[in-house]
């Protein structure tokens, strides 16, 4: 069975380590916060200027001055801090943020990512995505393996305008966990019940398959 969005988030949460500062993008990445194992000390950064983001506020406690990069009302955890946008991207560019998790429209086997623009459609802008992918050392992409037309989004080369080049380290889709190596996509894990053949069929890029591929452990 292919994973749903929560399943993808659950698998990515296993990549979060104790002591990490983590920036979560909008969409599936936001869900990762729900699955970080208890006992890990992790701080979430939102690029509009907060470290130590907490859950949504209780009804009636929303504060227009305290939002995340998705413009949602949030709360802060003990030890949180606020700062301006220049400092926020300063800590991103200087690689103080340990892990960046974001969505994508396409990823290519050399680690390029496209996620901000579809020519001919309304362009909303890149927001902070270009800064994040150009700077972060550890970038994990959460995305669907194929688009609505059934075409692979895991490609030899991206066809859409790029957000960043050679930057993605891992990709988690509803079908698989893949690592981007110097030789291209390497299949590391299968979603529960999904076969290697199904993953290969859904992938336009070459997949390096080294020995038997284990199933993800989502428990």
């Amino acid at each position, binding site marked *: 069975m292919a994973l749903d969005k929560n399943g993808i988030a659950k698998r990515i949460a296993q990549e979060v380590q104790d002591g990490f500062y983590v920036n979560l993008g909008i969409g599936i990445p936001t869900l990762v916060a729900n699955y970080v194992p208890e006992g890990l000390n992790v701080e979430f950064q939102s690029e509009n200027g907060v470290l130590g983001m907490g859950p949504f506020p209780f009804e009636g406690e929303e504060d227009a001055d305290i*939002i995340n990069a998705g*413009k949602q009302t949030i709360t802060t955890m003990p030890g949180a801090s606020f700062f*301006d946008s220049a400092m926020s991207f300063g800590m991103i560019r200087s690689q103080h943020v340990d892990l960046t998790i974001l969505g994508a429209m396409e990823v290519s086997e050399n680690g390029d990512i496209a996620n901000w623009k579809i020519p001919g459609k309304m362009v909303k*802008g890149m927001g902070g995505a270009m800064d994040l992918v150009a700077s972060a050392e550890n970038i994990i992409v959460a995305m669907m393996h194929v688009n609505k037309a059934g075409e692979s989004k895991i490609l030899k080369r991206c066809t859409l305008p790029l957000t*960043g080049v050679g930057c993605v380290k891992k990709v988690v889709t509803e079908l698989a966990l893949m690592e981007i190596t110097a030789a291209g996509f390497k299949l590391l894990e299968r979603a529960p019940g999904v076969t290697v053949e199904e993953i290969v069929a859904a992938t336009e890029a070459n997949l390096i398959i080294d020995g038997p591929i284990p199933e993800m452990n989502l428990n």
Partner: protein
Amino acid sequence: MITKKVNNVTEALVGLTDGMTVMLGGFGLSGLPENSIAEMVRLKVKDLTCISNNAGVDDFGLGLLLHQRQIKKMISSYVGENAEFERQMLSGELEVELTPQGTLAEKCRAAQAGIPAFFTPAGYGTEVAEGKEVREFNGKKYILEEAYKADFAIVKAWKGDEAGNLVFRGTSRNFNACMAGAGKITIAEVEELVPVGTLDPNHIHIPGIYVKRIFQGERYEKRIEQRTVRKRDI
């Protein structure tokens, strides 16, 4: 003490005329200089180039200026959530320059700090880099970006004093703190203007030297764009 206080928004915006470049603080609808935007709507200044991370929504923030077609060019990182913006952009009435958010912030900060240009990795290898100088440092490629030049910078703070010192609250600090002092004239509007000596000098976020005019806004709606809440445990 050098006083920066003006009596109202009308006095604060003196000299803001057609065709100028104006920076406006805020992220989404958080930390917007609401009173100054309302005054710009009233003044009907036009052909403006606006530098602001977002373009508001249809009936709030910079959307109000767009509605009256007062903006000729918009420089932003993200401009969704606004149907009138989309219409003007697609019809060619509005020029749009999309800039990575961290680059936008740093172009403000550079102007504030007297740095004419800087190298950033953001946008290298993408269409953002087209026509820009590329330089390699320590094996990594960077593109050259220049500081903004603005006639006015309009920021919003939580508290301020008559000396122009500013204190922000929560994530409404965002671009406001980067834009203060980044334009030829910086206007600060605050929710509460307090007497000099009230604010602890240790807790000032932006020193008054960056602010030319300060006033207390008459009214703040402080609209929330995405109201997200959780249920209380019973």
